[in-house]
Every structure is written in C-alpha cells, then in structure tokens.
C-alpha cells in the first residue's frame, strides 16, 4: 500500500503537470541564454570585422596615395606607436614572402578562400609562450602584393568562454530549481489528494463519522473539504432520519402483525368453526406469515446495509458451514428430484457472523432449489485461495439473463417472475448485503447452462499469516 502510493506519485496529474512546467522553464531558459550567447558572439565578431575592414580600407587608400613604401611605413608606424591592442598586419609579395608587418610567415597556404580566415600565432613573450587565435582579412593590392589585417581574438575568446560557462550553469541551476519545486509541489498536492481519497475510502467502508481534514489554510483544498464535509453531514443526517423512520415503521408493523396472527390462530382453534371459514382464514394466515418474513428480511437487509461493521465478528469455518447447510438441504433437494453435492476444503476460516453466513448460503441454495427443474443438480463448493475463500454455489438450471444478474442484488428485483414460485424478491439482496458486510465480493455468472454464484470472502488474518508462513517455510 505504502509502496504503491510512493510510486503512485509519478502517476499523479500534479506530477505530470509540474514535469511539463519544468520542461517549459528549461526550454525558455535555454532559448534565452542561448540566443544571448549567440547574439553576444556575433556582436563581438561584427565589431572585430568592422575594425579590420576600416583598417584595410585606410591601408588601401595609403597605397593609392603613396604606393608600397607608403603602406610599409604606415604598417610600421601602427605596429610601433598607436596600433590598437592585438592588431596583426602583414604585407607580402605575390609569392607570400614577408615585406613588412608583425607576422613572420604567411599563415595560409596561398590565398585563403574564406573571406574571414582565422589562424593562430605563437608568440614568445617574456616568460611564457602563448598561442593567439587571430581573425583576419586579406586583400590583393593592384601590384600583386598581399595585404593582411587581423585581430588577436584571445581576449574575446576568453570572454565568450566565460559567457558559455555562465550560460551552462544558469541552465543547469534553473532545471534543478524547477525540478525540485515541481517535485515538492506535486508531492504536497498528491499527499493532500490522497488524504481526501483515504478518508473517502474509510467513510465508504462504514466509518461514517469521518470527515475530510480542513487544514486551515483556507485554500481550494480546504474549500473542497468543507463542501464535501457538508455533503457528508447532510447525507448522514438523511440516513439517520431514514433509518429512524424505517425502524419505527418496522417495529410498529411487527407488533400488530404478531397480534393479528395470534388472533387468527385462535379463530382456527375454535371447535365450532365452519369449514367455509377455515379455508380463507388459513390462506390469510399464510399471507401474514409471508408478510412477517418479508419484514424480518427487510430488517436484516437494513441492518447489513447500514454499513456498520459486524458487531462481534468471530472465526467461522466456511467449509464446515457449507457442508452442514448442504446436508440440511439435501433431503429437500432429493424431494424435488435434484442432486445436491458439496465439496469443501476444510479449515477455511473467515471473520464473520455464522448466522448471517448461514442465511447467505440458505438463500443461494433456496434460489437454486426454486428455479432448477427436477433432474437438475446443485453443487456447493468452498475453495481456499492465498488470502481468500471462494464459496461457490452452482446449478445447471435455467440460469439468469445477464441484465437480471446485474440487478439481482437490488431489493425487490425479483427476476424472471413465474407463477407458482413464491419469493419476496429480497433473497439475493440479503445475500449481497451480507456479502458486503463481510467485505466479500459477490459475482453471479452463467454456468453454461445454469447459474454460478460466487462469494469471495477475505480469510481471517491469522489464516493469511499462517498460509504465508507455511509458504515461506516450504520455499
């Protein structure tokens, strides 16, 4: 159960939603920081390219004004005095031999195809050797000489790398933060929802006094809990009123019925009773009997349906009980030309009320006795499973249509009414009420042909424990 709930967190809508949001936040952060990174990089290289182009143009102008010597002078001047930091110049002859500039060798193999070629310079500064990436541009002067202007990018590259690291950290941290927030959010949400579900389950199982927890944060959950609690209060009040009414009606009916019966009985004992009166009084007496029985059954159903847990559950050996009941009904079955057999596992103990379980078996058996035609067979079986006991009563009679099987557990839903078959229409509803009271599952299915009623009862705890012990011992 606990395990299930823990894994259940990944299955909540809150978790899926927060994972979705985490994903969206991650995507947004990636796009923002990524485009900032690309933009910054393109601005930096754009600036560098602009400076290179300007310088190239001014050197070309110099060539037009004063030829190669002028360009050489200008380059030397720029390197020596006012040259910008990281500037790289080179003037080479048509065979790429150096004429002037601060680069010793032509860095490319011939003329570069790329309009913005990049290369590396190894510089030996006092103390250490370092490699500088250079972004450059190359022009061919009208006399066939080559002019190269470039910029040392190491400063910018360092800046870009720092930015890159910052971006990655930013993305990582925001994913982490969004993930943690989403996880705790969905965990808290799932816990509150599961609180509500748990309480509902407890109320359903009969603890009607239970109410949903109101935390006091006056949020939407408190509002929900408060409304649900109001609904529950109202339901409980209605149920109480209904039950009180029902109880008083039932009791008010019981006493007069009993008096009526006693008096009719007294009439029948009169010595000078005319035979013309005896017959109608006797049939009325049978009607009264039927009424009393229906009333008693209704009271039983009401008690079982009230959802109150069994007053004093005791261990009941279902196998033994089923065999006893089969033995009790065997003569009745034989009288009607039916074969009644029983196959029960022994020592199958459930927690419950022996009398109610006997009533359940009785009703199922009487149902079969009523509907199965002469020559048919009825079988009672009790099978012990890992943590349940299956009580199965099957016959090869006419069975029950599927739609009848579904509503057979409802009061007064007498199915396939036939003349001559007496029934209050309460038999199966009492069965289903008793089954519910024992936390059992009642299924009616076709036996092909016939009806197969299966009542699956939970085994008593001690039995389950013993079974799992013996399993682990034998394993």
């Amino acid at each position, binding site marked *: 159960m606990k395990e299930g709930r823990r894994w259940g967190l990944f299955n909540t809508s809150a978790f899926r939603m927060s994972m979705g949001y985490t994903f969206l936040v991650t995507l947004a952060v990636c796009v923002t920081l990524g485009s900032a990174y690309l933009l910054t990089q393109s601005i930096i290289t754009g600036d560098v390219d602009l400076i290179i182009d300007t310088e190239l143009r001014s050197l070309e102008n110099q060539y037009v004004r004063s030829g190669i010597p002028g360009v050489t002078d200008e380059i030397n001047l720029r390197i020596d005095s006012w040259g910008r930091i990281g500037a790289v110049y080179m003037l080479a002859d048509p065979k790429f031999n150096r004429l002037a500039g601060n680069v010793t060798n032509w860095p490319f193999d011939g003329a570069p195809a790329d309009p913005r070629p990049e290369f590396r310079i190894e510089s030996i500064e006092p103390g250490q050797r370092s490699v500088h990436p250079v972004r450059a541009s190359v022009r061919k002067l009208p006399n066939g000489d080559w002019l190269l202007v470039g910029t040392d990018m190491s400063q910018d590259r360092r800046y870009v790398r720092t930015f890159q690291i910052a971006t990655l950290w930013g993305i990582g941290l925001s994913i982490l933060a969004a993930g943690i927030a989403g996880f705790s959010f969905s965990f808290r949400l799932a816990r509150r929802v599961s609180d509500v579900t748990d309480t509902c389950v407890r109320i359903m199982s009969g603890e009607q006094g239970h109410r949903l927890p109101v935390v006091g944060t006056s949020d939407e959950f408190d509002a929900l809990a408060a409304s649900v609690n109001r609904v529950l209060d109202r339901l409980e009040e209605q149920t109480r009123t209904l039950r009180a009414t029902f109880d008083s009606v039932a009791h008010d009916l019981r006493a007069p019925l009993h008096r009526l*019966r*006693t008096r009719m009985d007294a009439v029948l*004992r009169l010595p000078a009773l005319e035979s013309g009166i005896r017959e109608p009084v006797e049939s009325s007496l049978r009607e009264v009997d039927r009424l009393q*029985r229906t009333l*008693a059954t209704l009271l039983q159903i009401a008690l079982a349906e009230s959802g109150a847990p069994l007053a004093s559950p005791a261990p009941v050996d279902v196998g033994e009980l089923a065999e006893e009941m089969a033995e009790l009904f065997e*003569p*009745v079955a034989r009288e009607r030309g039916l074969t009644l057999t029983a196959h029960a596992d022994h020592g199958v103990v459930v927690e419950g009320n022996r009398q109610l379980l006997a009533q359940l078996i009785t009703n199922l058996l*009487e149902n079969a006795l009523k509907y199965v035609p002469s020559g048919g067979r009825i079988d009672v079986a009790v099978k012990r499973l890992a943590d349940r006991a299956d009580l199965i009563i099957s016959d090869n009679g006419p069975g029950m249509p599927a739609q009848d099987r579904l509503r057979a557990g409802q009061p007064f839903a007498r199915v396939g009414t036939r003349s001559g078959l007496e029934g*209050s229409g309460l*038999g199966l509803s009492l069965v289903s009420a008793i089954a519910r009271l024992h936390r059992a599952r009642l299924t009616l299915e076709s036996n092909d042909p016939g009806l197969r009623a299966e009542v699956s009862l939970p085994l008593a705890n001690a039995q389950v424990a013993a079974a799992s012990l013996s399993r682990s011992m034998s394993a």
Partner: protein
Amino acid sequence: MHFDPQSNLVDVHISRLRQAIDRGAERPLIHTVRGSGYVLQEEEE
C-alpha cells in the same frame, strides 16, 4: 437475528423423522402444533 429458510426445509426433515420414528407405531410421538411448530410427546392432549 434468526436463521430463516423460506422453503419447506423443516417440513421435509419432520416428515423424514416421522418416517423413521412413527412409521407403523401405534401412537405417534411427533405432533404438529398449529401456529407454533412440532412437539415430541407420548399423548396428544
């Protein structure tokens, strides 16, 4: 709460008992008491 069969379960068993105990006897021991049930006694009142 009592156990309440609706079929003639009791009648069938009583008739079997009668077969076993009273068949051929001069004075039957099992008697029907109208409105109450059955009684086992030597003499009918």
